[in-house]
């Protein structure tokens, strides 16, 4: 079977671009590092759209591309799997990624780390693409690790900011928990089936279930939960907003955080095989969606609102997945990528216009006059997020709400609550930022007189393009549905998209409308509500700031864990601002001291040789 050129281009283009950029551009023309990278983005986008088009016609492939190594009994092949789900997400990632690369050129223009940024950013792009087309768990894991590494490099990109370094390390450590779970799951699969190719595992699973299959599924879920910020392990995501805006837009909205959901979608045959695991996933997703949505309503930093919103939407995706609707989850993954990227980029534009790296709600207001273009894009993405027909977000949210309806009243309540909260927080953000009193005349506690202005065209064009997608991708929804169903692994009926139903439509729109109205009331009719309760109830505010106490729990658990590790191992000592583990605890060193031979006398050496020989003789003769 002929492997299309596009598959090779997916890997060759970014690798070549990175090589060029690193070896040629970075030493001699750092300001031009983005040129090979943008070219590679274009090639990859074209290739991925081509593959999606091919997959739409029913084509698919799952084959090894080449031998990575064959040493003794170890045969590891580099394999590629192109099917409906993979190619759909691939197309979204490639296109959104390319547009954000273009945006980043303008955003990072003045930054001294310009070329380093693009190298890390494109490396992430490559790792993500590699992950999406892997055909076995080991390869998937390798690229997953690569994505995590790039996340660390990019969140902590501004190394002079201690907050950024801390956030990068926190993200890395939390992801490590998931990575460890993933690794153990892979090892179990290797021991049970010998081969971690998706096709192979799912076939063998039907014939000879491994005894530890439930554990594998659970571990895969833990890995997905840590990467995709589900309830217990979500707290790294809001803090990861310390990175530059393009990073937040690409990684923490559209792509990296969806890796966990994608893993679950890929492993769906295994997960659905295990009783009760889908229920667990749905439960965690529902709780995450509502919890994060609620928290998003009270945040003040623009990017943090969007971060909590992302967590909430990831919860919705998990909910849909857990209820058995893989198609709905993947569709929401794709649509969410579009509108969330727009929202982040607009937030970035606002901050950029103010000349800062992040913006708080208290510093902005009434920007509709000075930044109309941003208003338009933001509004477009906002209505899409709220799930208003006929925009893109509606189709995906509709699918999830319908899945919840079919699941039962409890799920429905959660889904509708999440939808309503979604509409609330995004409308609140819309009103507070763009409408309402202008910054100079505001009623908030601290007001900085900024001079917001529109971003230059280079940063505006990608946003506009993405906004168009956020609005009109709904037209593509049926096409995407057909695409998802093609070339699928078994359980194709889970990939079917929802059928339209008036009840669901009404419920969804009502929830959105409720949220919108509440936001309008609390921001426009009663302005200052946002700050009044903060000033009046500082205890409440600190409670919200610590995520309703969850962050305190996390730090307590982390502290306990660290003390336990020190007691048990006595050797590992974490330095949070450094990113490298240094094991210099006195216990280990003194153990070494007790074991070492002082004096350096030759006769002692000889005695030890005799002793060792005698021991070996004793073992041999007994």
């Amino acid at each position: 079977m002929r492997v299309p050129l596009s598959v090779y281009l997916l890997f060759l283009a970014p690798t070549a671009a990175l090589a060029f950029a690193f070896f040629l551009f970075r030493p001699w023309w750092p300001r031009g590092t983005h040129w090979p990278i943008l070219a590679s983005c274009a090639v990859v986008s074209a290739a991925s759209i081509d593959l999606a088009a091919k997959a739409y016609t029913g084509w698919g492939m799952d084959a090894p591309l080449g031998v990575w190594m064959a040493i003794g009994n170890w045969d590891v092949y580099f394999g590629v799997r192109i099917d409906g789900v993979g190619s759909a997400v691939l197309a979204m990632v490639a296109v959104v990624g390319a547009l954000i690369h273009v945006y980043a050129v303008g955003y990072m223009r003045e930054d001294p780390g310009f070329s380093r940024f693009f190298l890390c950013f494109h490396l992430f792009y490559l790792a993500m693409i590699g992950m999406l087309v892997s055909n076995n768990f080991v390869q998937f894991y390798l690229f997953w690790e690569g994505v995590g590494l790039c996340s660390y490099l990019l969140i902590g990109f501004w190394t002079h900011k201690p907050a950024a370094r801390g956030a990068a390390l926190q993200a890395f450590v939390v992801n490590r928990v998931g990575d460890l779970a993933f690794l153990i799951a892979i090892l179990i699969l290797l021991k049970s089936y010998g081969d971690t190719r998706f096709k192979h595992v799912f076939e063998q699973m039907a014939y000879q279930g491994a005894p530890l299959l439930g554990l594998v599924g659970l571990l895969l879920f833990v890995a997905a939960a840590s990467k995709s910020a589900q309830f217990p392990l979500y707290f790294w995501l809001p803090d990861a907003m310390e990175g530059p805006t393009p990073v937040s837009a690409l990684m923490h909205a559209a792509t990296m955080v969806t890796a966990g959901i994608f893993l679950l979608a890929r492993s769906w045959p295994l997960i659905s095989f295990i009783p009760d695991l889908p229920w667990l996933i749905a439960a965690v997703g529902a709780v995450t969606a509502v919890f994060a949505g609620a928290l998003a309503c009270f945040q003040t930093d623009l990017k943090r609102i969007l971060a909590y919103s992302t967590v909430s939407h990831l919860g919705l995706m998990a909910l849909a997945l857990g209820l058995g609707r893989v198609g709905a989850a993947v569709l929401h993954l794709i649509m969410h990528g579009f509108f969330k990227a727009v929202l982040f980029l607009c937030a970035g534009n606002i901050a950029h216009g103010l000349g800062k790296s992040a913006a708080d709600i208290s510093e902005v207001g009434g920007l509709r006059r000075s930044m109309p273009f941003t208003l338009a894009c933001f509004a477009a993405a906002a209505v899409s997020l709220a799930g208003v027909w006929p925009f893109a977000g509606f189709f995906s949210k509709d699918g999830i709400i319908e899945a919840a309806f079919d699941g039962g009243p409890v799920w429905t309540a959660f889904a509708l609550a999440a939808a309503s909260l979604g509409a609330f927080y995004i409308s609140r953000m819309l009103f507070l930022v763009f409408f309402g009193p202008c910054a100079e005349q505001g009623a908030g506690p601290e007001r900085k007189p900024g001079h917001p202005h529109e971003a230059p065209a280079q940063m505006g064009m990608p946003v506009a393009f993405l906004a168009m997608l956020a609005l009109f991708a709904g037209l593509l929804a049926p096409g995407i549905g057909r695409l998802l169903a093609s070339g699928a692994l078994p359980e194709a009926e889970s990939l079917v998209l929802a059928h339209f139903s008036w009840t669901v439509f009404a419920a969804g729109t009502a929830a959105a409308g409720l949220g919108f109205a509440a936001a309008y009331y609390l921001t426009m009719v009663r302005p200052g509500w946002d700050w009044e309760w903060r000033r009046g109830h500082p205890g409440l505010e600190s409670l919200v700031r610590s995520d309703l106490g969850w962050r305190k729990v996390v730090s307590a658990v982390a502290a306990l864990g660290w003390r336990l590790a020190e007691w048990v191992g006595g050797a590992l000592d974490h330095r949070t601002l450094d990113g490298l583990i240094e094991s210099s605890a006195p216990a280990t060193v003194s153990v070494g001291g007790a074991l070492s031979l002082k004096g350096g006398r030759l006769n002692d050496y000889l005695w030890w040789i005799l002793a060792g020989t005698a021991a070996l003789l004793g073992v041999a003769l007994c």
Partner: protein
Amino acid sequence: MRDILAFFSAPSLWPQLTLGSGILCCLAAGMARGLEAATSRVLGTAALIVALWMLLFTKLGAAGPLVTLDSLGLAWQILFYAGSLPVFLSLEADDEVPAALLLGAGLGMGLMAAGGSLLMLFVGLELASLPSYLLVAKLRSPSAPPFEAAVKYFFAGALASCLFALGMALHYAASGSLALSSAPGPMGQAGLALMGAAALFKLGAVPFHFWLPDVYESCAPALAGFLSTSVKSAAVFLLMRLASIGMGSAMAASLPWIGAVTALYGALLALRQERLQRLLAYSSVSHAGIIVLGVGAWAAQGCDRAAAAPIFFYGLVYLFMSNGAFFFVKASGLTKRGEVGGYARMCPVPAALFATLLLSLAGIPPSGGFLAKLFIFWEAVKAGLYLPVAGAALAALIGLGYYLGLIRDMYFDEPVWRRPSWEPGAVRWVLWACATAAAALGVLPWVFSSVLERIFS
């Protein structure tokens, strides 16, 4: 022409004979006057390269009762000769005798590899050890007591060789021949244990390792690199031969435990070291432990020739990592851990090379060292040796302490070394080659896969 090729490719000692003539040439050159300073380097490197080339054409088989070349021996000769190449680049003028000694050591290792009898193993072992005792005393670094280290090495090594001889004699008494086959009865087991002790000594396993830090610390860094790679590979090979003779024996069963203890011991002691060469010595002990674990796992699974590939891969990656690390010490002139601080700011490229090597030694993906460790651990898990693997993994974790600690000192500490030195010339190329290879083997192992396939099938 065809006849000449046939003659050359018969399974025989042609690589070893090449080295022998290289020795003669070096000694002859040493007696002549007015030669270039680079003569010893050129002669030695040429002899090694010709020997390596001859290996390509060597057919496997037996030639008489003493010489048997099989795939294992062929593969390990690659490690021996390739591992000796870097040290030649550090030779200076009037160093013909050390060059001859190095070639002699290589010859000994080659004889061991082609040996089909215990006697050949012994001869090869001795021939490899005696020059290294002299070399430790001869090629010296500016501020260390070389003779003391050489004397300690000599006596400990000679004791081990005598133990090997006794083991050989007992084996002979039990089985009636010196061929590589198992000997029955308690005397045979005792013989095997004694020979195994000698092999473990050469490898630097606990508790036979005490000579190792002293020797590595006080000899020239390039020579330490040679000792830690070629000589260690020779010891591994010897251990593997012994393990395949005594497959079900208690000695083979105790190897994984010895390996785990060695790995842990080396790691724990390396944490305390202030002097860089001594730190690298203990890290070398730790790596030896992991290799012994690998040999133990190999023995537990039946000593299948094709399954020796993971151990070979480890030897190959270790060759690059260790040589590179020692060459960095030589080139940069750093001797103490305290002097490493801030090195990256003054010499960014050398620091990056050293960091790559350290990452590979620590076994952090995607370096070659990670893959090598992964293979060994996987083989051990397959053989059911869970506890030793846990011990070795713990040792690897402790190893992160000093490896990453060095990287951290280089990159994040304030500079303390006032005059950064960076030796130009051949040493720099060796360092680049080693660092690149250590990294590349992790990312592109297929480059060597085809070679390994050919060798081990």
